[in-house]
């Protein structure tokens, strides 16, 4: 009993701390967080597999609200239930909260500082590369047949070139998946 309680505290602390670091080192919001979350949750801590990571992202994108909070809640719950969600969410919020209050109190605002802008330029270019590496890693796990490849390429083109809202792409994907599975089962039954 004492042992499991200790383990519970440790796992909550780990969720909080890892998400605190994610909140602290993500600049630009949204998808910029993915490479960090993936590294921690899938590769280092093995909290979930690549498929569950993708599901987490899909749900986070499809639901309204803050994507970072959505994924922290998702991963926290998978790992330790409701209290895990709280630990992870609190962790990801706290750096933002403290930094904004500190900056507003101390500086009032960020002026035009060329070093800050330069650093920001560097980070954005890096985020672009990190997100692509993440997409490749997750793609390797998920894109295993022509159906999956076709959908991924169509979704990419629809969003990147034709600027369709991500939510629509996810809804169309869900319908396509249901049809695909139904047809596959039907064919199998016929044989």
């Amino acid at each position, binding site marked *: 009993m004492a042992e499991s309680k200790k383990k519970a505290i440790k796992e909550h602390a780990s969720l909080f701390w890892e998400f605190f670091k994610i909140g602290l080192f993500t600049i630009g919001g*949204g998808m910029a967080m993915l490479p960090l979350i993936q590294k921690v949750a899938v590769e280092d801590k093995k909290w979930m597999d690549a498929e569950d990571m993708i599901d987490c*992202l899909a749900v986070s994108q499809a639901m309204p609200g803050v994507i970072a909070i*959505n994924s922290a809640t998702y991963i926290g719950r998978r790992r330790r239930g409701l209290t895990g969600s709280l630990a992870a969410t609190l962790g990801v919020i706290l750096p933002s909260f403290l930094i904004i*209050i500190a900056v507003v109190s101390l500086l009032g*605002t960020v002026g035009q500082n060329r070093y800050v802008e*330069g650093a920001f330029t560097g980070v954005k270019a890096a985020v672009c*590369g990190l997100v692509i590496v993440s997409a490749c890693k997750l793609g390797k796990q*998920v894109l295993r047949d022509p159906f999956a490849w076709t959908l991924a390429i169509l979704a990419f083109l629809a969003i990147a070139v034709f600027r369709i809202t991500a939510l629509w792409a996810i809804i169309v994907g*869900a319908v396509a998946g249901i049809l695909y599975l139904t047809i596959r089962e039907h064919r199998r039954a016929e044989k």
Partner: protein
Amino acid sequence: MIYAYLFSMFFRIGLFSFGGGLAMLPLIFQSVQDFGIMSAHEFSNLVALSQVTPGPIAVNAATYVGFNYAGVPGAMTATLGVCLPSFVLILIVMKFMEKFKESKGLEGAFLGIRPVTVGLIGAAAIFVAETSLVNGTLFSTKVFTNPLSYINPIPCAIFVVTLILAGKFKVSPIKITILMAIVGAVVCG
């Protein structure tokens, strides 16, 4: 009263904005305008600050508005408001997913949703590229007609080095972020 104000305003923002981050800013702008608590100039400060400070943009914005308007308790109220819809909705969706785990419908839906999500992540990289690696949209003929003003050479070099460090040498994203912030500040600053 002020707190109820802030809470309901940011709760609505959290509940009705899809796509996260930058997609939320127009809704935040509209709300602060409606409530008359922020000038356009202050809002542009908020946008600049939310983007260059780390963390989720919506949380940064909520903390900023709340703090300016009602101090630390205001910041807490606004942040709680913007996070609560996300938190509750995800818990409900996960409960639903676990309940129907065995259903063919849900299995099929995720069979389609997973590849779409991979495509979506790829598209997200394109959107970041359009604000850093190139000037304008990525699929542009300008790459042939006027490459010098279209391509930003230093960010492109940083991008390529990042691909090599993260893809081949498995350097952690945190280390790469810190390194490229320093490189950017020194070279572009």
